């Protein structure tokens, strides 16, 4: 209802602008007459669209093609019905003379402009929703309970046998938590921050998995301060471990690297694991889809590639314009 009220006010204001412009170019019989006509036509169109939308889709998100057809029908209907209503109100004869065709042209132009206005508003709202959703997912991803409990179980095991390593593990875990918390509070992070977070995460995992996990992180000095949405690489690395290396009996290696070529920044997470994003362990691929979405929002023109390596393992490559 609130949306309809906003639309009513916006369309009313828009109609007034049209009436003013038409009067300024000397069209019709003065501002009063133009205003009645433009309000009648404009509001009829709005009403037809609203009623049609309620009737056909019960107010849910309509499919694009049929919705455009509905708008076109409403525009023609509004032009006919609205001008008839205005003639009635003003006590004028309703004639489809030369003026009526000009009125149709104006109505169609106004309809296109109105559609564009509401569509871009809707798009902006949709993007905002996606941004918030992505942030929520990111928050959830960090508090992965399995990781938390496993880490604590390992620290517990080490306290008795090797207190020094227990402290080292807690240290890495601390680094990871600190970096993650900092990342959630920021819109943008540097590559150096992201790599610090990954190091904490991978060090903890290496203590858990022992010799089955090897890793390397390569960040050239000149790229350390490059911007990156926080926690963009972490889910990719987590994916590599979960679906690539953990299910593989002999384990494997994860390589995370950043490099610059031309005017693009390339980020790569390559593993020597089972070589499937989710097939073997039945994941849903939500993690990677989420990364792809966040990348597209943060950097229009960025590219995302993912697939198995010919020699085994899996690689995810991000290419970001600088």
């Amino acid at each position: 209802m609130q949306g309809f009220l906003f639309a009513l006010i916006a369309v009313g204001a828009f109609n007034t602008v049209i009436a003013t412009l038409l009067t300024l170019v000397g069209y019709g019989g003065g501002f009063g007459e133009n205003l009645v006509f433009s309000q009648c036509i404009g509001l009829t169109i709005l009403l037809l669209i609203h009623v049609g939308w309620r009737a056909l889709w019960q107010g849910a998100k309509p499919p694009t093609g049929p919705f455009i057809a509905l708008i076109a029908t409403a525009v023609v209907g509004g032009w006919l019905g609205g001008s008839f209503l205005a003639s009635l109100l003003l006590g004028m004869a309703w004639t489809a003379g030369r003026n009526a065709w000009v009125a149709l042209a104006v109505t169609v132009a106004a309809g296109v402009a109105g559609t564009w206005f509401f569509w871009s508003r809707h798009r902006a709202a949709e993007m905002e929703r996606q941004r918030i959703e992505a942030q929520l997912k990111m928050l959830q991803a960090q508090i992965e309970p399995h990781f938390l409990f496993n880490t604590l179980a390992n620290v517990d095991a080490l306290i008795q046998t090797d207190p020094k390593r227990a402290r080292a593990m807690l240290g890495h875990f601390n680094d990871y938590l600190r970096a993650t918390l900092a990342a959630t509070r920021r819109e943008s992070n540097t590559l150096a921050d992201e790599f610090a977070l990954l190091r904490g995460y991978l060090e903890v995992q290496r203590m858990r998995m022992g010799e089955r996990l090897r890793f390397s992180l390569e960040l050239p000095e000149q790229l350390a301060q490059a911007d990156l949405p926080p926690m963009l690489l972490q889910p990719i690395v987590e994916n590599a471990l979960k679906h690539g290396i953990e299910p593989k009996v002999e384990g494997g290696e994860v390589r995370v690297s950043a490099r610059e070529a031309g005017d693009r920044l390339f980020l790569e997470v390559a593993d020597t694991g089972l070589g499937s994003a989710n097939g073997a362990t039945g994941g849903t691929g939500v993690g990677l889809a989420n990364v792809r979405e966040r990348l597209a929002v943060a950097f229009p023109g960025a590219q995302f590639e993912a697939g198995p390596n010919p020699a085994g393992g899996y690689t995810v490559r991000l290419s970001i314009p600088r």
Partner: protein
Amino acid sequence: MKAIIADDEPLLALSLRTALAEAWPELDVAAVVPNGIEAVQAAERLRPEVAFLDIQMPGMTGLEAAEEIVERMGEAAPAIVFVTAYDEFALKAFDLAAVDYVLKPVAPARLAQTVARLKGRRTEPDLAAQLRLLLAVPRAEQTLAHVRAGTGNTVRMIPLEEVCYFQSSDKYTSVVTPDAEVLLRMPLKELIGQLPAGRFQQIHRGTVVNLAEVAAAVRDETGRVVLRLRRRKEALPVSRVYSDLFKAM
């Protein structure tokens, strides 16, 4: 008493071993292995009385390893205690199946209970029945009426009544009817949940049979069961976990 421990995380395996040494000094931990496949081998080779199996392991999960151990060792299979760090679903399943489990990190009091239970056990629990419950796939809301199998540009609709059995082959499932065999692009595990309960029964890790097509169950002298079908010549082997389901009434 002899025991084996299987866990892919070396520190946790060590921790369990240390805790067991305190809670049960007479227990001889004969092997600590890092995955399910080696757990099965160790069980066969060492014939322990108890096996502590981590659930999440590479190669073969603890559940699959338990199934394989029962399959290969039958009555001689060790008592199994599952070990897990965190998995709400699994805990619920363990309780339902009355399976013994310990949580990581191992709490001494909880481990003492398990040890007492293992020591004082007079009658062996029905491990096969427990595993059947644990391995049961959750049912989907909707069940299928027929399967759709694509060959070239034709999609064949096969009513479930026509299916004698399903056989898994890697990521695919082959559908066996009285006169044909067609491949489905769906793993058996996924398909099972969508079959109407009561009409289809898993009888092996890779086989689900249409119960209406079963003509007889034949038990050989080693206790192994095979099923004869009404409209197919081949006989289907039943794994030990499921063989109780075909006892005479």
